[in-house]
């Protein structure tokens, strides 16, 4: 690693170290009951215990799989739908209020209905995550697509492009950035909704782990669960950002 890379890494680490120090400080300040805040090293110890003895990896895998499937399916549908809405103005005026209505509904509010219609197994969780990803993704898609300027399409037409060529060679490249943004937004929302979806009688999963721990007041387990969710979301986002940077080298970005 070169000097600049090390510096970036150092800069990225500082806030984390700060957060941990603050955590200790709050714990030792005396303002809060110490039994209500497990220390970072205790949480770390719990993490290794859960990892080695309680199958934390199974929970991580269960949750990641749910998020992954929910986002994949949600975006798979959100891309064409968002595209149509962004492309055909009438479709947009027609569907806009509806979409905003459903988007404003917190997925948690739907859980009772989802249980009634889809039961309590894997499908029900997938439905919640699908719902969350679809509505967040579709908005990003159609906002993005509706901002595509007609200039490039006109240029292509004057060079002789037919409808299929315009779609393949102009519209798709211009849509890719919006698909990637939709993916990132949907991933964020899906992780945020995960715990809610695992409220539906989940055996395994980070949300379920937090849920169970809260009944027994196992604060350190709750902390491990929360940190795991945050970390995995962060890693997924990082991977997606790398892919984005690779696919969109052509884009003019303020920050390289």
């Amino acid at each position, binding site marked *: 690693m070169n000097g600049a890379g090390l510096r970036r890494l150092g800069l990225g680490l500082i806030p984390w170290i700060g957060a941990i120090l603050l955590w200790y400080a709050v714990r030792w300040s005396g303002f809060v009951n110490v039994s209500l805040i497990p220390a970072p090293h205790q949480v770390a110890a719990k993490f290794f215990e859960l990892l080695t003895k309680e199958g934390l990896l199974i929970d991580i895998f269960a949750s990641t799989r749910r998020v992954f499937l929910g986002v994949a399916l949600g975006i798979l549908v959100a891309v064409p739908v968002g595209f149509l809405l962004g492309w055909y103005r009438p479709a947009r005026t027609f569907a806009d209020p509806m979409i905003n209505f459903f988007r404003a509904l917190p997925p948690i509010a739907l859980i009772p209905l989802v249980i009634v219609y889809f039961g309590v197994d894997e499908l029900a969780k997938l439905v919640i995550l699908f719902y969350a990803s679809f509505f967040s993704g579709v908005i990003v898609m159609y906002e993005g697509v509706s901002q595509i300027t007609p*200039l*490039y399409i006109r*240029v292509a037409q*004057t*060079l002789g492009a037919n409808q299929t060529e315009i779609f393949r060679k*102009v519209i798709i490249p211009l849509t890719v950035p919006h698909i990637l943004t939709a993916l990132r937004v949907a991933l964020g929302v899906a992780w945020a909704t995960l715990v809610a979806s695992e409220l539906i009688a989940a055996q395994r999963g980070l949300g379920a782990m937090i849920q169970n721990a809260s009944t027994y007041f196992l604060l350190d387990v709750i902390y491990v669960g929360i940190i795991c969710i945050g970390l995995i979301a962060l890693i997924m986002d990082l991977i997606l950002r790398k892919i984005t940077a690779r696919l969109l080298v*052509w884009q003019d970005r303020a920050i390289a």
Partner: protein
Amino acid sequence: MKKRAQFDKVSLSFETPKGRLNVVEDVSYDINDGDFIAVIGPSGCGKTTMMSMLAGFQKPTTGKVLFDGRPVAGPGPERGVIFQEYGVFPWLTVKQNIAFGLTLNANHVPTAERDAICDHYLGLMGLSDFANSYPKHLSGGMRQRLAIARAYAVKPQFLLMDEPFGALDAQTRSNMQNLLLKVLETEGKTVMLITHSVEEAIYLASRIVVVTARPARIKEIIDVPFAYPRDESIQERPEFAELRSYIRQLVMDEYRAQQAQMRPVSFSE
């Protein structure tokens, strides 16, 4: 002379939130095969709008715009357009931008020939060193040259150029003008060029259409008395200077008319 394009009593108005905006009004003239028409007039008067009707992006409100005797129904590769905003594709490299038209079915360019054509235009436009760069790394003038190269590469019979040399420095601009003259000489194209430069209009065009402040009407159509092939020496001729001051006066009058139209607005606010 065969008529290539015709404006026949063409008017166009836009519906805006503030009411109807007349942009082109009762414009009639013919563009014959091999003509080089330069359109000149104050900023915002409706030149781009006039051109975009012939390009096929806008329909006249009244009157007819004909190409090869038929009303223009939409854009097509026989009418190449160099847009005022360039429109270089940011997701393609410089070379891929030039190749774009060559890869389209309509132009029937065999794969084996594409590379050579691209390299030819890269060289002509001084972009060889940037062949694999993305447009974000190009200066404004380079983007403009790229847009020109991309349009030339598919060899349209009719070229519509909207201030194609506006972003170039004086030296490059004159290179591009001479290059255009050479291309026309060898390929025999018909051109409609929008420009703000009176010298450029006289140096390049066979006829100059001076349009009024908005709405664009025809103020005068002037035949340029110089034969092709032309070279820079004509710019030293007394007729050139005479014509230049005459046209400048026409354009200046319209510029003043435009300012006068705008004045009440700026005072009342």
